[in-house]
C-alpha cells in the first residue's frame, strides 16, 4: 500500500482459518444505501459516536479481538 505496488485488499476480504489451514477470499461491494459512504449518507460527521449506548464497552486485555464468526457468515 505504502509503495503503491501490488494489489491491495480493496473490496476483498481475506479470511484465514488457522485450523483448516485455508485462505478464503470474499468479494465485497459498496452498498449504495450505506449510511456513511452511500448515495444518501446520513452520517456526515462523528456525532453519532457521542451516543455512548450505540457501541459496546471497550475490550479488556486478553479478550478476543474481533467480530464473531456469525458476522463473517453474513458477508458470505
Amino acid at each position, binding site marked *: *500500500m*505504502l*509503495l*503503491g*505496488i*501490488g494489489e*491491495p*485488499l*480493496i*473490496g*476483498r*476480504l*481475506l*479470511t*484465514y*482459518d*488457522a*485450523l483448516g489451514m485455508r485462505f478464503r477470499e470474499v468479494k*465485497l*461491494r*459498496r*452498498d449504495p444505501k*450505506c*449510511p*456513511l*459512504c*452511500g448515495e444518501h449518507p446520513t*452520517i*456526515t*460527521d*462523528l456525532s*453519532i*459516536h*457521542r451516543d455512548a449506548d*450505540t*457501541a*459496546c*464497552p*471497550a*475490550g479488556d*486485555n*486478553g*479478550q*478476543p*479481538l*474481533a*467480530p*464473531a*464468526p*456469525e*458476522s*463473517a457468515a*453474513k*458477508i458470505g
Partner: protein
Amino acid sequence: MKTLKEMLAEARQVVPEQGPAEVKKRIDAGEPLVLIDVRDPDEYRDGFIEPATNISRGFLEFRIGGAAADPTTPIVLYCQSGLRSMLASKVLKDLGYENVTNLQGGFQKWAQSGLPVAKDRPMNAEQIQRYSRHFLLNQVGEKGQRKLLRSKVLLIGAGGLGSPTALYLAAAGVGTMGLMDGDVVDVSNLQRQILHTTANVGRPKVESGTEMIRALNPDVNVIPLPTRITVDNVMDIIKDYDLVIDGSDNFDTRYLMNDACYLAGKTNVHGSIFQFEGMATVLAPNQGPCYRCLYPTPPPPGLVPS
C-alpha cells in the same frame, strides 16, 4: 541559428502542457503515468513531486527506456520552471513517445500551489546495508525504500494484531509510526502480543512497544500515543498519517475508525481475529466499501465478545 525562444515555441507546438492541479488529479486518479523529474539530482533531493523518478535531462535519452518501455505510456515531465522539461519533452516526442505532457510552471508552480512535495535525505552506510535486500527487489529498490522512510503509519492498538504489524513495518523501515494504545502490558498478553516482553508487564503498551521498535530499527520515529482513540481526538490524530491500521479489539473503536477515516479520506487497513479465524481487508474511501457497507451498525452490546 535558432534562438532559445524559437526552440521553446517549436516544442510547445507538439507538447501539450498541464498545470499542477490537472497533473495532481491524474496522479490521484491512479492513472499509470510515468512522472519524470528532469532536474539535476541535487535539485531533486531538495524536494520533488511524488512519485517522480529522477532522470536528469542529460541522461534522458539513455534512461527513458528503463522508465517507460512502451511508447504509448503516458509520461509527464517537469523541471524547476517548466522550460528545461519542455525541451526534454520535445526530445521524447522525437524519440517516438506519443503521450508526453509537460508540467506547466514546473516544480516551482507545483510547490507554490500548496501541493505536497517530498524530500530525500541521502541514505547513510548503515541504511544501505540494512535495506540492501529491499534494493534487490525491482518493485522496491532504493526509491521504494526512500518512500517507506518517508511514510507515516498510524497503528491503532499495540496488541495481538498491532504487535506483528509494528515489528514488520519497523523492520522494513517505515519512517514514522504512531503507536496508539491506552492499555498496560498484562502477563496474559505475552503469548501472542510479541511487541512486549516479560520485563515490561505492568508498563504502558505504548512505552514497551516504543522501546522495542527503537531497538529493532533506530530509523523509525515512533510517536507514542498512550491513550484510547476517542471521538474528540481521532480527527486530529489521523490527519498526520498516510495510512491507518486498525488492530483494535472492540466495535466501538472499529466503527469510530471507519467513520473517521472515511470522512478524512484516509485508507484504513482493517484486521481482526477470533480464535483460529483471522480476516483482513482494506477500506479505501470511495475506491471500495467501508465497514458500514458490510455491517451498517455495531452489534448490540453482549451479542458478541468485545
